[in-house]
């Protein structure tokens, strides 16, 4: 048996497969045993109750989908009262994804999550920072640094920071998060996109624009994962378009120590257990005794610092 355990800082996961925030809920337990997952990651929660965006909230595009769900949330109170206890029976570590539109609000919600049953925090900083120009925190290194520092002061739990592809500064943002003492990076959230119905001439999403996910997005996320691995020393969790065991392997090869699976679960609800099993088989076939030997095994011949100068399109 190939050893699939993987370490993300202080956390040890039994395998590197976990869901991506917003594409998973306990409802999944009706499809498979949730404890087979490396970790459980909640939909992003906010302190206040939020309604979410107008419908249609999703549409399909070539090789993927757009979503503009908009973080509907029952609020922190409801999460603590109903969701957190319901996760108690599961052994897989629970990662709570949180967001807020201001640094203080962000710090405030994280300060209330230092609770038994919560194994880590994933900071979804791809939300607009309403105190500045409305751009997401994760789009710039300075705003990333400020928000991550504030969160770090509030918790000793593992703090994962999720990057956005909507930036020209992936490396700088990754380094800012590391400098602000994030424990790991999740790379990446969706990229801003749009679809229009050519005949009705209406946008296909109620909210006009939304985030691209699925296989179409994978090459972008893989590039960002690689850039991040090459520019920081904290662990990187890959996310974006993962559907097959080859996709999982590609993210591991570039150095991600675990992966999150999102859209693929919509297409095949049994994707995650299948990927776990397929990864066992893949690594055995390739002659690896443990997944950790495989992680970062890219044969790129590139020096560590060559990468930061590659942000221009070819």
């Amino acid at each position, binding site marked *: 048996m190939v050893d699939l355990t993987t370490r993300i800082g202080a956390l040890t996961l039994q395998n590197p497969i976990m869901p991506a925030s*917003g*594409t*998973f*809920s*306990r*409802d*999944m*337990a*009706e*499809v*498979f*045993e949730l404890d087979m997952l490396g970790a459980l990651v909640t*939909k992003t929660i906010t302190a206040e109750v939020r*309604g*979410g965006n107008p*419908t*249609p*909230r*999703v*549409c*399909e*595009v*070539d*090789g*993927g*989908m757009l*979503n503009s*769900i908009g973080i*509907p949330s029952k609020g922190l109170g409801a999460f603590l009262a109903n969701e957190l206890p319901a996760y108690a029976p599961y052994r897989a570590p629970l990662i709570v994804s949180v967001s807020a539109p201001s640094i203080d609000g962000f710090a405030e919600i994280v300060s209330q999550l230092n609770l038994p049953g919560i194994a880590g925090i994933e900071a979804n900083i791809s939300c607009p920072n309403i105190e500045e120009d409305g751009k997401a925190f994760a789009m710039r290194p300075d705003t990333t640094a400020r928000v991550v520092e504030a969160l770090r002061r509030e918790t000793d739990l593992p703090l994962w920071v999720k990057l956005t592809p909507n930036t020209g500064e992936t490396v700088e943002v990754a380094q800012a998060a590391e400098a602000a003492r994030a424990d790991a990076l999740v790379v990446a959230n969706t990229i801003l996109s749009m679809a229009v119905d050519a005949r009705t001439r209406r946008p296909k999403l109620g909210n006009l624009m939304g985030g691209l996910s*699925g296989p179409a997005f994978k090459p972008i996320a893989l590039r960002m994962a690689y850039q991040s691995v090459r520019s920081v020393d904290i662990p990187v969790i890959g996310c974006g378009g993962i559907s097959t065991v080859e996709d999982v392997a590609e993210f591991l090869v570039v150095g991600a120590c675990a992966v999150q699976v999102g*859209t693929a*679960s*919509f*297409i*095949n*609800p*049994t994707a995650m257990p299948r990927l776990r099993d397929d990864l066992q088989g893949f690594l055995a076939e390739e002659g690896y005794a443990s997944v950790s030997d495989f992680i970062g095994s890219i044969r790129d011949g590139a020096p560590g610092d060559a990468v930061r100068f590659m942000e221009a399109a070819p």
Partner: protein
Amino acid sequence: MLSPAQLEPSKERSIHEVVGTVVTHRDAASGYRLLELDVPQEALDCRPGQFFHILCPVDGQSQPFLRRPMSIFGYDRDAGRLSFLYKVSGIGTAALSGLDEGDRLNVVGPLGNGFTIPQNARHLVLVARGVGLATLAPLAQEARRLGLGLKAICSARSPEHLMSIDHFRALGAEVIPVTDSEGTSDPEQLRSLLDGLAEADEMDMIYTCGSNRLLKLCQQVGRDAGIPGEIALEQQMACAIGMCQCCVRPFRRGGAVVQERVCREGPVFDIQEAMEW
């Protein structure tokens, strides 16, 4: 009396991703296709009103990415059969319509909460048009099993466009066809038809599906006669399991408007809570 939306899903594995095999696939009416699959038994613990999420075939011409939700038209656990009645409307259903006997099809289900049948009900009435018939058809199957009367008011453009009438009759339902061309399908006519059934005490529960016009009508009839009812609603879906929150619709409840997931709290909802769209 109506079962509340099932907020806390059971922890048993009730949703299955399975591969079925096409047994028959034929035109049901112009633009409509009837697809019958052979599927593993585990996926056939179905209730009327539930649906499956279907992975449409992909070829060089079209690559539908998301699955497509389809109501269960018929199911037979013993025979291992599952069927869908669908309208060819866009790229997914067009791709589906090309399936041949023996082809394989990946389906996920059964999904969602089905219709409820009140304990004391004797006479069920359903009102449907077009593809709504597909969603309501299993009610006839269930009414027969429970020994209840069922009247199916089937609406269509013209008598030739009436679909599934024989299917309903075969299941022991009384079919009341109404059509635009004969002038029997307009709201006033339907209203008096339904009022008549209510007065004659031949309507303990009313079911409908799909259209705004029918929703409004059934709400009025139900409210005036104090008869409960349910409606099956549609909304675009990604996961169909309750995870992504894309499929919400607004409902009136307790004086407020609440958003509920069509895939999880629905697709069947209390008819008085449903809102026009």
